[in-house]
């Protein structure tokens, strides 16, 4: 049942097509590339699927891993934000207590 065709289609072609799909999608979606560059990459990927995709993934710029901990879009990061500002001396005792009370009341009701 498990013959060469099965191995070739499932284990080799399928992930390759998914990778190519991701690459095409990524090239089109990126806004740091000019139209000509995008077309260039797409041509390379279509003409040389494996080599083109590998080259693209190597050449693709690296996304900065840094994340914001000091935002208020989640209670957890809002707490970190409050503590960071407290240690920087931006919050006096009163406003720090108020910020804390608000955060932890959210915790009690939620």
């Amino acid at each position, binding site marked *: 049942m498990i013959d060469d065709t099965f191995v070739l289609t499932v284990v080799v072609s399928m*992930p390759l097509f998914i*990778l190519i799909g991701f690459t095409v999608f990524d090239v089109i979606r990126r806004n740091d590339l000019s139209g000509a560059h995008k077309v260039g990459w797409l041509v390379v990927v279509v003409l040389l699927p*494996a080599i083109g995709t590998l080259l693209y993934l190597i050449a693709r710029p690296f996304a900065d891993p*840094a994340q914001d*901990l*000091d935002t208020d879009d989640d209670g*957890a990061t809002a707490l970190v934000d409050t503590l960071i500002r407290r240690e920087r001396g931006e919050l006096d005792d009163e406003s720090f207590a108020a910020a804390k009370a608000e955060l932890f009341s959210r*915790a*009690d009701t939620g």
Partner: protein
Amino acid sequence: MIRKIASLMVRGVYRRVEVYRAPADLSGDPQLSVSNHFGGFADPLLLIYAMPRVPRIIARDVIWKIPVARSVMKWVRAIPVHKREDKGPGSNDVMFASAYEALEERSHLMIFPEGITRDEPSIAPIKTGAARIALGARASGVDGIEITPAGIHYENKAALRSDVSVLVGPPLDLDAAVEQLVPAGEDAGPANRALVRSLTDDIERRLRHVAPDFSDWEEARTLTRGAEMLLRSVADDPAAPVPVAARDYVAGYLGRKPDDEKRQITEAIETYGDALSDLDITDAQLQSGMTGRRFLWRLIGWLVLSVVLLPFAVVGVLVNWIPFLVVKAVGLLRVAPAVLATLKPISAILAFGLAWGVVGWGAFRDFGASGAALALLLMPVYLAAVIVLTERVQTLWTAFRAWRGLSRSARADDIIEVQRREAISALSEAL
């Protein structure tokens, strides 16, 4: 390129890597980063990944004696430093000269000012090298030097696929600091010993602020647990995993409290912890809201994923079992955790890299360049399938335990909930 390779390695070696950088624009200024050194080789790897600019690393000159390592060090343009305990001849004039030169080129320089790799949860008194490099470069005319502290927090540095966070603090503006420390007209160079001392103290304080710095492992564990409880209690979704960078920041914040306050904090955490262990449950499980029905959905999700990924995972095991065993064997060595933190990533990278190279070469011989490219594209996919499947088993097991724990403790639910609130309010009080 260096950063891309480091990022690939980091993502393979660790499970969750979170980076938090205090907002600051470090793109154009000459920059000297200082970091704690808990993990040997893993530290510079993580810092290359975490910092916006690839740093030139100041490292012990003995590394240049190892054949392959020498080429790597040359390639990343690391700067050798001679340590007295390494014996042999050598002065550090060349090191200082190349460091000044690097800052003159407005590059990013990186040093581990503790001078050694440590297996302690605290920062060793730091050496004066960082301050002397910065002041020396400034004296030779480099302006605008920023000194940036970076702290690396390992969940378990001796284990592959564990969690890591890197916290980068706000930079210290050297020009402003010198202006404040030195009266006009006095020597502001590295020969001014009082200046070197006070700048070193300032750097050390800033490093302690971002790096793990606890009095012992017990305290580190307890405060980390407390930080996790706190964050979970205010999170919008208490069932979501707590971000490790946030957890490590809050744990450090608690650790900087005066001793008597810290005692109260520890007590609150431990009282609640004891109540939890009486019920044989954890705070995460208690807050998970895991019901039988939710667990069942998780299980079904995992089964579907398994069916989809199984063919790839099977291939992944077939092509990767040799490097996997090599890494396992290295893990059995009885050496210090910091040494393992060096050996494990290196052996993993070498073993997997070699295995993939062999497969790639075979594919090249049989099918040409396209075949080799295909092999190099797919090998990581197969390995990822294995990793995803096995790590999902862990999450599934955690979910199962949460469900069991919650249904077991249903009777005591109200009491433990009261105890939890008490602990949280005591902790938030102490913040």
